[in-house]
C-alpha cells in the first residue's frame, strides 16, 4: 500500500493473553482490522468477547495488567507494540486518546475537573498553567459544558453523568488526537444523554477529522456512527463489513442473534425478543471448532471440529465472515428470519 493510502491504524493478528492461576485467558485471539483517517470502526460484542481488551491494547494499557501481547499494531506504519513504555507515553493522550465506559469512576474524585484536563494538556504541550487553563475552558465549551469558565473549578461529583462524559471527551481532545478510542462511551448514561453524547462525538470527529474506534455491545450505537463494523465473539472477529451491509445482509448466526435481540419501537410489536441462548464461553478453554457452535441453532456436528477462518463473502470482498454454513443456506436462513 502506498504511503498516501496508508491506513491510520492497522491491527494485524493481535493476540492478548492474561496468565492467571486457572490458566491462560485468551482475551483477544488473533484479530486484524484497518482504520482509515477520519473513518469510524465499530467493534461490537457481548461482555467478555475481548472487545475492551483489544481497545486497551492499542494504547498499551493492558501491559500494566500483566498481559502478553503479540501481533502488530501500526499507527501510521509505526508498530506500537515494539515501543518502550516511555515512547508509548508520548503517544497516549496525544496521538491516540481514549474515553471510557463509566465517567463517574474514570475521573479522579479528588481533583477538580479542570485540573485533570490541564494535566492532560501539559502532559504533551509545553505551555504555562494559565495557557493550559484557557485551553481547558475552551475545550469544555467545545464539548457543550455550559458556563465553562465557572465549571472548570468544579469537582467531578458536582457534574452530572452526561457532563462527566463530556469532560472526559474534552480531556481526550486536549491534544487533538488522530485516533479516538471510545470504550462503551454511552453505556453508563441515560438514554436521552446517550443520544447527545453520540451526536457530540460525531460532530467532533467530523470537525477534527479524527479516526475513531467505538467499542460497544449496542448495535444501535454503531449503526448510526460507524463506517465499518466488526463483530467479536470469544476473542475473535467473526464478521466484518461496511456498516450498512452488515446491518442489512448479516452473514453470521451470532450477528443475526445480536440484530434480533434489539427491541424496536417502529413497526408492529413482536411478541418476544429473540435472545441468544447460552452464555459467552470460557476464554481459558474456548469451545473446539467454531467457537460459537455450542450456542448456534444451525450448527452441524462437524462444526465442533472445524475452525472456520474469516473468509470474504462472494461478490463483496470487504464483507468477511467466519461461518461454516454454506453461503446459499445462510442467505436462505436470514431471509426467513427477517
Amino acid at each position, binding site marked *: 500500500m502506498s504511503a498516501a493510502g496508508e491506513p491510520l491504524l492497522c491491527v494485524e493478528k493481535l493476540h492478548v493473553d492474561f496468565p492467571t492461576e486457572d490458566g491462560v485467558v485468551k482475551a483477544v485471539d488473533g484479530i486484524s482490522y484497518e482504520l482509515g483517517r477520519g473513518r469510524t470502526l465499530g467493534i461490537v460484542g457481548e461482555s467478555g468477547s475481548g472487545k475492551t481488551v483489544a481497545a*486497551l491494547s492499542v*494504547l498499551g*494499557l493492558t501491559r*500494566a495488567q500483566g498481559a502478553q501481547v503479540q501481533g502488530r499494531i501500526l499507527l501510521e506504519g509505526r508498530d506500537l507494540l515494539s515501543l518502550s*513504555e*516511555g515512547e508509548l*507515553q*508520548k*503517544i*497516549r*493522550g*496525544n496521538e491516540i*486518546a*481514549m474515553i*471510557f465506559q*463509566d465517567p463517574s*469512576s*474514570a*475521573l*479522579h*474524585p*479528588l481533583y477538580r475537573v479542570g485540573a485533570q484536563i490541564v*494535566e*492532560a494538556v501539559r*502532559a*504533551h504541550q509545553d505551555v504555562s498553567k494559565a495557557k493550559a487553563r484557557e485551553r481547558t475552558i475552551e475545550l469544555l465549551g467545545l464539548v457543550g459544558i455550559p458556563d465553562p469558565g465557572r465549571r472548570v473549578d468544579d*469537582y467531578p*461529583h458536582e457534574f452530572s453523568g452526561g457532563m462527566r462524559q463530556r469532560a*472526559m471527551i474534552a*480531556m481526550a481532545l486536549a491534544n487533538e488526537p488522530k485516533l479516538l478510542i471510545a470504550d462503551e462511551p454511552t453505556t453508563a448514561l441515560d438514554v436521552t444523554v446517550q443520544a447527545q453524547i453520540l451526536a457530540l462525538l460525531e460532530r467532533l470527529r467530523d470537525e477534527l477529522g479524527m479516526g475513531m474506534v467505538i467499542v460497544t455491545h449496542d448495535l444501535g450505537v454503531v449503526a448510526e456512527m460507524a463506517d465499518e463494523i466488526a463483530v467479536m465473539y470469544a476473542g475473535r472477529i467473526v464478521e466484518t463489513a461496511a456498516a450498512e451491509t452488515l446491518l442489512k445482509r448479516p452473514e453470521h448466526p451470532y450477528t443475526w442473534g445480536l440484530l434480533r435481540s434489539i427491541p424496536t419501537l417502529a413497526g408492529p410489536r413482536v411478541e418476544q425478543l429473540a435472545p441468544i441462548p447460552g452464555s459467552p464461553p470460557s476464554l481459558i478453554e474456548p469451545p473446539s471448532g467454531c467457537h460459537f457452535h455450542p450456542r448456534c441453532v444451525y450448527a452441524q456436528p462437524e462444526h465442533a471440529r472445524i475452525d472456520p477462518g474469516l473468509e470474504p463473502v462472494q461478490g463483496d470482498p470487504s464483507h468477511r465472515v467466519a461461518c461454516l454454513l454454506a453461503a446459499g443456506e445462510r442467505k436462505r436462513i436470514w431471509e426467513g428470519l427477517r
Partner: protein
Amino acid sequence: MTRYIIRRILWGVLLLIAVTALTFVLFRVLPTGDPARLRAGRNASPQVIAEIRHNLGLDKSLLAQFWIYMKEVFLHFNLGFSYYSSAPVRGLIANRLGATVSLAVGASIVWLGIGLPIGIVSALRRRTLLDRASMGGALVFISAPEYWLGLIALYLFAADIGKVKVFPGAGSYVGLTSDPWKWFSSLLLPWLVLAAGSAAIYARLMRSSLTETMGEDYIRTARAKGLSERRVVMHHGVRAAINPIVTILALDIATLIGSAILVEVVFNIPGIGQLSYTAITHSDFPIVQGTVLLGALFIVVANILVDIAYAYLDPRVRYS
C-alpha cells in the same frame, strides 16, 4: 462547617466529663491501696492516717469528692494535688509533657517515614520477593511487644550495656531546649522501638489501600493521558490511597501516648507515661486521673482534627 465543628467540640467536652467520671469511679470503687496509709508510711498510728485522710479530703462522701473534683477540673482547670508529693498535678504533667510529645511526634514521623514507602513499594511490586520479605518482616514487628523490643534494643545497641555501642542507653534523655543533639540521639532508639509496630501496620495499610486504588478506573485514565508511571502512582494513586490512612493516623498518634508508657519506663524517659506508671503503683489517684484525662483530651482533639482534615482531603465530604 463551623456549626459542625462547634457541635463536635461540645460533644467532646461531654465525653471528657464522662471519662473523668468513669476513671473517678474506677479508681475509688475498685480495691487498690489506701492512699492515706501509703502516704503515712510504715507503723503510722491510726490518728496520723485519719489526719492525712482528712487533709486529702478522703473522709468526705464519694459524691462530695466527685463534685469537688469535677468543679475544680472543669471550672478552674485544676487537676488537684498529688497524694504522694503534694505537688500540683497540672505542674507535674506540664513538666513532663515535652518528653512525651517529643517521643510521640518523633515516633510518628519515623513510622510514617518507614511504613508508607515500604507499603508503596510493596503495592507496586506485589508478590515479588521484596514484597513478601517486607510484609513478613512487618508481621514480626506487629507481633513484638514494645517493652520486649525496647529491652532487646538496649541489650544490642545501648552505649552502656549494649553489644554494639551506638545509641545512648536508658536514662539519657535531655530536653530539646537544653541540648538539641543530645535530645535527638537519646530519643532515636525509643523512636524506632515505639514506631516499629505502627510502621509495620501502616506499611500493610498502605499496601492494601494503594493496591485497591491502582485498580481504579481513574488510574487507567491517568495512564491513558500519557502521564509517566511515577506521576500516575504518586499524584493519582497515593493521593487517593492516603485518605483512609490519614483518618486513622490522628487517632493512632493520640493512642500512641498510651504505648509510650512502656517505652518511657524501659528507656527511663521522664514523660507522662512514666509519671502515670509511678502514680498507679502509689495509688496516686489525682495524677492517674490527670493523665487519663489528658489522654482522653488528645483523642477527642485528634478526632475533631481528623474530621476537619477529611473535609479538606476529600471534596465529596462536606459537613452540614
